[in-house]
């Protein structure tokens, strides 16, 4: 009788553990859901198949990343028919979300071909005539959209600033003059560079036709949310469904991760090759 009891307990434990451990698939399977979520901790992700994407060094163009960091990124995907969301999770014990000299930011990106074609672009950010679309999430933008002040005191709490011309007394009742004066000392913002802020989303939409060609996408449509986990980051990036992507016509997807504390920025990154993207 005692033997049967132990056998039952072991069987139950085994069955329980089987339900928790997902066997990764070799492709990214997109599960259809009623409602999309940007919450990396939402329950909807529990039932979605998992893809473990092995990462490799970006060592095609200088500056290259010479020492590997993030070994793999765990990916899940869902769609509501019109939008598609990807949940990326990877290990990174440090939290790098403060910009500054020699401070680099944790981030991740998903990349899709602009056009469905059996002859896919080069996975290293596409090639001439074969554009890729990139949605790029950054930890510092996440902090800012969640309410962290976008000023120097958020980075250096003890910083003391005498005066900004845009905040001069004679301008205090003239918001337009204040904005114009501030723009004089922020040329990137004056030029309308989306990257330079102010920021409403932690994700930036980009296009590329090969290394060194990364440019803002004509339209800004991606959304996202990232949360720091005990051992890394979990990030959801959503964007419109790729044109032509369906159950009958699969696509390809690639991923990149930047570990800020490892001086990863721009071309210094871990990346994957193309991975099949399949609508279930």
């Amino acid at each position: 009788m005692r033997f049967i009891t132990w056998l039952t307990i072991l069987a139950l434990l085994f069955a329980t553990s089987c339900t928790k451990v997902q066997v990764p698939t070799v492709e990214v399977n997109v599960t259809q859901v009623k409602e999309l979520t940007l919450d990396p901790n939402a329950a909807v992700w529990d039932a979605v198949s998992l893809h473990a994407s092995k990462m490799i060094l970006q060592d095609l163009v200088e500056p290259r990343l010479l020492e590997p960091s993030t070994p793999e990124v765990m990916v899940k995907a869902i769609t509501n028919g019109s939008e598609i969301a990807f949940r990326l999770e990877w290990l990174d014990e440090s939290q790098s979300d403060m910009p500054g000299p020699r401070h680099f930011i944790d981030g991740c990106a998903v990349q899709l071909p602009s056009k469905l074609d059996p002859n896919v672009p080069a996975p290293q950010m596409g090639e001439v005539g074969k554009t890729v679309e990139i949605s790029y999430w950054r930890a510092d933008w996440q902090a800012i959209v969640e309410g962290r002040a976008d000023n120097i005191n958020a980075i250096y709490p003890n910083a003391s600033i005498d005066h900004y011309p845009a905040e001069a007394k004679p301008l205090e009742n003239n918001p337009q003059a204040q904005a114009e004066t501030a723009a004089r000392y922020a040329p990137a913002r004056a030029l309308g560079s989306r990257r330079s802020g102010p920021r409403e989303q932690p994700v930036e939409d980009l296009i590329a036709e090969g290394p060194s060609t990364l440019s803002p996408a004509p339209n800004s449509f991606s959304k996202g949310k990232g949360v720091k986990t005990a051992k890394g980051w979990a990030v959801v990036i959503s964007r419109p469904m790729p044109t032509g992507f369906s159950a009958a016509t699969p696509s390809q997807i690639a991923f990149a991760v930047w570990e800020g504390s490892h001086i990863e920025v721009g071309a210094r990154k871990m990346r994957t090759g193309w991975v099949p993207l399949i609508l279930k």
Partner: protein
Amino acid sequence: MARVNNWQLGREMSYWYPESRPQKQFAAVFDTNKCIACQTCTLACKTTWTSGKGQEYMLWNNVESKPYGSYPLAWDLNLLSLLDGQNWGEENGQSVYKGSTIFESAPAGERVLGWRPEDEDYAYPNVGEDDCAGGIEHGASIEIPHAMAWFYYLARICNHCTYPGCLASCPRGSIYKRPEDGIVLVDQNRCRGYQECVRGCPYKKVFFNPMTSTSEKCIACYPKIEQGLSPQCFANCIGKIRVAGFINTPDKAEADNPIDYLVHIKKVALPLFPQFGLEPNVYYIPPIHVPTAFTRQMFGPGTDKAVEIYRNAPNDQDLTSLLGLFGSTEAIMRKWKRVGDKAIGMDENGKELVNVPFKEPVHIRPAYDKLYQITRTNCP
């Protein structure tokens, strides 16, 4: 990498892009012997260009006390320690750099040899101010000629290099050199703030703006240059240590071009750390009271001769007159000439911009004043 000619090295060198010189090259000469480190230039620049959010720590222009001053901290020593020493040789009577530049010694996977300052390195912009090279013993007194420890002031802006390290470092091509005047700029719409330029500029004159996630740098006040005017840090220099203009290559040097005359003909103004390989276009008249063992590693093998020429300036009317034109007008002097005891600065069409006597009338007053029948003490 392409092979390009760097006349400051006396040889060809490797560079990321082929040689492509601008139609004319913005350049400047700073006379270190005149600088008093009042920082008026620093403030003129700061209030004009970098008073915004994210620019708080930026000093596109700074003045540091050598040997100990540096902003950011140890910008020069850090790179010198990465380079394999300074080996200059001589071929056909010309100095030739035998060592490696930052481009030729780029490690695997990198575009240039460089290093990244940390935020603390920007926290002490005037560290070492007025600190002497050696200790002063109790009871020391001034001796002339100079027997005491030394220091001098080094005013620095972007060198608008012919072969910019920042431009070579940027993987996105966000930095460009204007073909019309050689001024080096960061395209604020294209820059993505990777800070590769900050790493790659050996002079550390590109700064990261954490508020806009872009890198920014000295723009040589190009809106003024386009109007024929000197940059703010030149126009506001109360020591009149600076002259702005345009430089030709040595083979096309023109004696009536102020910069060409000082750099190529008199060879009294020298580039800052030519061994880095960037062909910087701000030239310095080295301090004459500093041991040349120190200044030689900073300004190259022409230092001893430059000091000798400068010391002889009282006997050289042409040089004296041109030195007198420094800071005499906000307009950029494209040409100059000496007429008797006067130096004349001109625009590119030869029209006079300024006329400066370089010998002021001297009156020696007799000790006894006959008119008032009184004896006065002549004080200096």
